């Protein structure tokens, strides 16, 4: 097994586990300050938007608005996600649109 890959897998496992485990185990006895909770409540939406925007708008690390298959596939995906709130269906529609766009372009 490749040593570099092993380090990445084990390192990722640790930094995945700790944020899941520490708050519940440590805070099951204490109260968190209100402003910190407010800040934490914005983190999910902020991190998802920060990940998604470059993924869709900058496919090859350059800002592309026209003829960008990611941007085109995102449109039906957002609509399906808003209507159904289903991850499985959104992924399916997104991938099918991506295939069609890539074939046609």
């Amino acid at each position, binding site marked *: 097994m490749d040593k570099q890959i092993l380090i990445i897998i084990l390192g990722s496992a640790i930094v995945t586990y700790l944020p899941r485990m520490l708050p519940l185990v440590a805070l099951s006895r204490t109260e968190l300050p209100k402003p910190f909770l407010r800040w934490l409540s914005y983190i*999910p939406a902020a991190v998802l938007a920060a990940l998604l925007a470059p993924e869709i708008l900058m496919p090859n690390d350059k800002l592309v608005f026209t003829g960008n298959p990611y941007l085109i596939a995102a449109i039906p995906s957002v609509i399906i996600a808003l209507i159904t709130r289903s991850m499985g269906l*959104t992924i399916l529609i997104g991938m099918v649109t991506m*295939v069609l766009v890539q074939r046609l372009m």
Partner: protein
Amino acid sequence: MINLDQQLTKNKPISNMSQFFYGVKSALPITLGYLPLGFAYGVLARNAGLNLLETVMMSILCFAGSGQFIAISLFSNNVAAGAIISTVFLVNLRHLLFSASFVPHLRCFKPGILALITAEMTDETFAVAINHYNNHEANLYYHFGLNITAHLSWILASLLGGLAGNLIGNPEDLGFNFALPAMFITLLVLQLNSKKTVLVAGLAALLSVSIAILWPGNWNVILATVIAATLGVLLEPWTSKF
């Protein structure tokens, strides 16, 4: 089993076995989402240069859809291990909040059990469990039934994707390059429940793209998230007037 929901609301004692299988049943919608996603992860991991054992081992030890995708994508771009692990950490920071939100429901259990239950806490298992606990008492058998089923489907899908990885030429031809954006779109849509959150998400998207253009590297996600969430708190006196 069939009338478990009725029994639960009537507060009748329910066998641990029924609770476990109710958890399994609650995980089925999650497995529908995990099968294509885990398969896509398996295909991409093999294409990035991981062998089958490494591909499956990551799904067993991490069980983090977006974290695993990010790690694989950065690895195939020759990013250093330290930078990959830091980015995965940042992507997982949202779980701090999820974990903290379980406190009122699960504080009665022993820390050792809680440490075990959180190992399989993903966006989806969290969402299903916290929804269940809004009107049911927390139950470890239910929770482990939910967690284990979701995790097994993730491992199985990764294995199948890993096996197919070498057979499928270019995963992009099958649209797998859009599996991750589509997952983020769904999770983001599920998060946008107030105008304040929409504003923070918009700021984060704008900041992330701007920073990525001005300062290539992978700092855009970390910086945009922290700045947007901080602005979200600082702007609250103003945004609450909407």
